[in-house]
């Protein structure tokens, strides 16, 4: 079972990852290994940092260790506006108010939901240390019609 336990099927709930994920989607999560490296754009699963017995949460990495992040609905990394193809142009450019200005630590990640106006994420609860990351959502296997590998962007 060793190889199998590296993979975890999960059911997705909530609206904060629209349009990428829709409630009811079934995802396959690849568990973190000691040598796992995460990239910007990866969709990761972690425990709610405010509640160690709370739910598992899923968000997308937008900021990497040591980067400077300024995030409202849009994201600025080291002062540059981040290009985010997965948002499919749905973010309203009207709201430019930044919050959650951060210099990310050496082993932490800044995560956000794709549905920027309906997501509680690093803008609220801060960065996620890599030790708290459960794994990365690799593919959606149900519903069949939308079954596909979840794209990596960098």
């Amino acid at each position, binding site marked *: 079972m060793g190889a199998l336990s590296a993979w975890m099927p999960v059911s997705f709930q*909530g609206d904060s990852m*629209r349009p990428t994920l829709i409630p009811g989607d*079934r995802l396959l999560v690849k568990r973190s290994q000691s040598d796992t490296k995460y990239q910007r754009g990866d969709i990761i699963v972690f425990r*709610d940092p405010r509640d160690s017995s709370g739910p*598992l949460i899923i968000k997308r990495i937008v900021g990497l260790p040591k980067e400077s992040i300024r995030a409202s609905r849009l994201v600025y990394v080291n002062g540059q506006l981040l290009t985010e193809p997965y948002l499919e142009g749905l973010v309203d450019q009207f709201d430019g108010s930044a919050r959650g200005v951060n210099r990310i630590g050496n082993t932490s990640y800044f995560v956000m939901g794709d549905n920027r*106006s*309906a*997501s*509680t994420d690093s803008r*609220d609860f801060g960065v996620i240390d890599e030790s708290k990351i459960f794994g990365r959502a690799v593919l959606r296997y149900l519903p069949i019609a939308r079954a596909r590998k979840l794209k990596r962007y960098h």
Partner: protein
Amino acid sequence: MNFNQISVALQRIVNPEITVQGHCDVPCGIYDPKDAQLAAETVEKMMTLMDGIDAGSKATRNSFIRYVAAKELHAEKVKHEVRIIWGDYFKPEHLEKFPDLHAKVWQIMKTASACRQGAEVTDAVNLRQQVDEFADMFWATKS
């Protein structure tokens, strides 16, 4: 693996025991068309006041200018509030229920602009009615 083990494994894949949350602390109730409706009513009220004023004196001219300023502000607010609900709240399944949603929003944008550009009370009345219809669509998706 025997049949039972395979069956359990399949069950686990189709209905995983673990749920991951696309988490949002803020309830969906943060979306509410009442701000847009209130702004549209304000536009109508200001237009009506503009119609009824004789801007001959310094004091009445001052009032007239204030009505115009409030009309401008609230017509733009209507556009902003409607855009937020349209862009952030409505989902594809809502569009199936209200295929004319996009046309309605487009109409509101145009009418609100007409309210800014002109001084016809009928434009303001149309704007209020259109925003009310938009609000009806919103609440219908909640029921």
